[in-house]
């Protein structure tokens, strides 16, 4: 495989992992706009462990994910007092605070960034992404997905049916953060240098875009979305200057024509939407 192709596949793998970090909370009704903050935590924690404590990269990457998950778990309870757009903004604020803290944390280089000594091969990143996708897929075959859907669509009824809405919300946020943390840690060890500025709002926003573009109705949506976001700009490389403008136009037109995202659950389900809409407003 050519160097270019390998590079693209790594980018795709990293974007996919991030997308699943957003997808999980989203399936439970949380639009996480602070995913970059959790990626930063995973990246810095893992980098610190390999650099300063001499951990092997695989252990450090796992620990990076765990650190992000633990932080998410710690903040989830107070954060989930908020809902909807307020929750999105709370996650957004958290992401900003996290990246501002890393910007000032001198043991990991502060504004100058943090070089990471150990390099991992492309194959490691790709295997990790495969693992994440398989795990999320496995999860989609458990009851948990149905529970998340219930919490997202009708938290009050979910509560009356005995679901612990808070706990499910915390779980979704935590697992999503863990996945994002692993993504950040992989990023750090593949590119061997991280800086806090990279983990900004725009990274979070784009990651959310991958998921919404791919569609939230299917587990494969985030994968497809990440693939579009990685590959289409590359395909437009020949039109160099115009490529981002063309790509943005593509997103707008695409969403206008297919608002439910690219992947929906088959054609028959497409009608569900129209019906479901009128059903929910009628009743």
């Amino acid at each position, binding site marked *: 495989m050519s160097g270019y192709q390998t590079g693209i596949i790594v980018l795709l793998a990293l974007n996919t992992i991030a997308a699943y970090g957003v997808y999980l909370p989203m399936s439970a009704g949380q639009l996480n706009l602070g995913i970059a903050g959790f990626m930063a935590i995973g990246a810095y924690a893992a980098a610190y462990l390999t650099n300063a404590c001499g951990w092997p990269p695989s252990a450090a990457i796992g620990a990076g994910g765990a650190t992000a998950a633990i932080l998410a778990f710690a903040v989830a309870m107070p954060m989930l007092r908020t809902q909807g757009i307020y929750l999105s903004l709370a996650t957004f604020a958290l992401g900003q605070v996290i990246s501002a803290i890393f910007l000032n944390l001198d043991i990991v280089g502060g504004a100058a960034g943090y070089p990471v000594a150990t390099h991992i091969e492309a194959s490691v990143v790709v295997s990790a992404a495969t693992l994440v996708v398989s795990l999320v897929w496995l999860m989609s075959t*458990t009851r948990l997905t149905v529970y998340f859907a219930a919490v997202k669509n009708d938290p009050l009824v*979910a509560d009356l049916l*005995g679901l612990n809405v808070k706990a499910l919300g915390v779980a979704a946020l935590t697992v999503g953060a863990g996945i994002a943390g692993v993504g950040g840690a992989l990023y750090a060890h593949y590119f061997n240098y991280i800086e806090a500025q990279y983990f900004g709002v725009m990274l979070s926003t784009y990651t959310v875009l991958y998921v919404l573009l791919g569609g939230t109705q299917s587990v494969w949506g985030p994968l497809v979305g990440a693939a579009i976001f990685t590959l289409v700009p590359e395909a437009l490389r020949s039109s160099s200057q115009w490529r981002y403008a063309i790509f943005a136009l593509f997103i707008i037109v695409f969403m206008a024509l297919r608002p439910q995202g690219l992947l929906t659950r088959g054609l028959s*389900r497409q009608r569900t939407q129209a*019906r479901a809409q009128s059903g929910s407003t009628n*009743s």
Partner: protein
Amino acid sequence: MTMLLSIQSLCKTFGGLEVVRDLSFDVPDGTATALIGPNGAGKTTVFNLISGVYPVTSGSIRMCGVDIVDLPSRHRIGRGIARSFQNIRLIPRLSVIDNLLIGQHVKLKRPLDVLRPFRFARDHEWIRAAKAELSAFGLSQYDDEPVGLLPYGVRKRVDLIRATLSSPSLLMLDEPAAGLNASETRELHRHLDILRERGTTLLIIEHDMHFIRSICEQIVVLNFGCKIAEGPFDQVRTDQQVSEAYLGTERAT
């Protein structure tokens, strides 16, 4: 006869407005009780208080002798209280089976079991139970249909089955026959008969008097949040106050 549910001096105010006032009534085990009254009398509010949607202002709600007013709403289904909703509250995008799975959550023994990928186990007991219940009520053909696509009457029944799948001892139904045509109402009737045979206690809000009369032994009538009458249908029907406030002159029987 033992009392499954016993409500004493229940009050609820919303911002100074007294919606339920000093209400007391009992639901004996194994019976069907109707809660009727004019629009805005507070019937749905009573359901909401029993299932814990709102905290009570004062009074007690005893389930099998235990006061549950301080029990968080999500634990009440575990005590055997399940309900359907006046406006159907199913998740339109999920299939019928998936909606029914949520209703069985109380049956979960160990919390970690939620992580078992049951879709591989085609005949998981929950799925089996859901399918059995659907076919018992003649709805098996809708197993995998997204709920949003189903006709109103079928959705109402799925909502009902979701509530029964938690094997409740007390099933509260809020206007189950509203919006159903005559034949659908007959089917609903059969459905409820089966549930009664199984020993489920029913508490029903309904405006269809034929329906109430043929199902419920006991009627509780509310007006402005107060109980104005109580007893078997034929006794309540002749009550002066009930006629004036609720049934009207041209009675629906």
